[in-house]
């Protein structure tokens, strides 16, 4: 009865059970730690000095189609944030992203776009302080034009765990800005 195969099976079964229990403990305990750190109401963030610019782009990579130019928006901003509470024993990385939310032309339509994001893998890098920082992405809309529309900037985060569920949240700071008018050659002259 007690041959090599049954022994190996018993050992691997026991190992799998133990690993599963440890993983469950890690998931539950880290969730309570996040609750204790009140990560869903982080109020150490500020987004300020938002300067919006706009231009017309002709490339496919900027949303242009059929040779028609597409309106693109870019911003510069200041950002201060302390995301250290998001790091505990079950945090593999924090993905932090700056979003702008704005209404569409028709009733009930809404849009949300990402201007900037960052992968943070260590607690030492979790304090952000950016001055006059240029957005990572040039943003276009489903509609042809969205100049002069009001938008709201927000800093959101996603915790990627070592094991368990993905956790999402946002910081309490919101900063309004208006999409810029496209500069034409006439304006510049």
């Amino acid at each position, binding site marked *: 009865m007690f041959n090599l195969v049954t022994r190996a099976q018993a050992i691997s079964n026991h190992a799998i059970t133990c690993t599963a229990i440890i993983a469950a403990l890690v998931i539950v305990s880290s969730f309570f730690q996040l609750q204790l750190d009140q990560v869903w109401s982080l109020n150490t963030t500020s987004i300020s000095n938002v300067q919006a610019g706009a231009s017309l782009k002709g490339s496919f990579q900027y949303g242009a189609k059929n040779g028609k130019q597409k309106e693109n928006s870019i911003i510069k901003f200041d950002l201060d944030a302390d995301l250290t509470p998001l790091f505990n024993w079950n945090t593999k990385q924090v993905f932090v992203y700056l979003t702008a939310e704005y209404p569409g032309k028709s009733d009930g*339509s*809404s849009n949300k*776009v990402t201007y900037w994001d960052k992968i943070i893998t260590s607690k030492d890098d979790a304090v952000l302080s950016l001055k006059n920082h240029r957005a990572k992405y040039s943003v276009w809309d489903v509609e042809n034009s969205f100049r002069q529309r009001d938008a709201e900037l927000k800093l959101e985060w996603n915790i990627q765990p070592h094991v368990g569920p993905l956790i999402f949240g946002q910081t309490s700071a919101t900063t309004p800005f208006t999409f810029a008018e496209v500069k034409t050659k006439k304006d510049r002259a």
Partner: protein
Amino acid sequence: MNLRTQVAQFLALAYVFSGAYMTWKTLGVVANTHSPIVVVLTGSMEPAFQRGDVLFLWNRQKSNSVGDVVVYETSTKDIPIVHRVVREHHNQDKQYLLTKGDNNAVDDLSLYGRKKSYLTQSDLVGTVKGYLPKVGYVTILLTENQYFRFGVFGLMALSALLQSE
């Protein structure tokens, strides 16, 4: 060695396989997707998801928000792609999504194929809800490394022979 024990062994094996298949299909029905569990094959979401990590999907959402990690299929690639939603545009009945891999320099516009500039809900296999590291590497080894595959099959055959003694 008689026929009765051999048939019993075969039944036990069939029970294991059908059990696994039923669990997989049940999960698929609950999560409303054709593959409720996927194994990461590329490094475009590193360091969050590495090759061999296992992801659990959910596909009963009506819409997605920016920041969600979704799995989608397109006509240009034959493997499902795991990327993050960076833009969403919606009205009462439709939602357009733009995705990008965290580790990629540019968005997925060129992956969507001709004349397609956004994803819709019907392109999605699901939204990533849970994560298990490394376990899926076994399936990558089984499909991509023939030495490992033959090794495993050899071991199974050997154990079957040993058990019948």
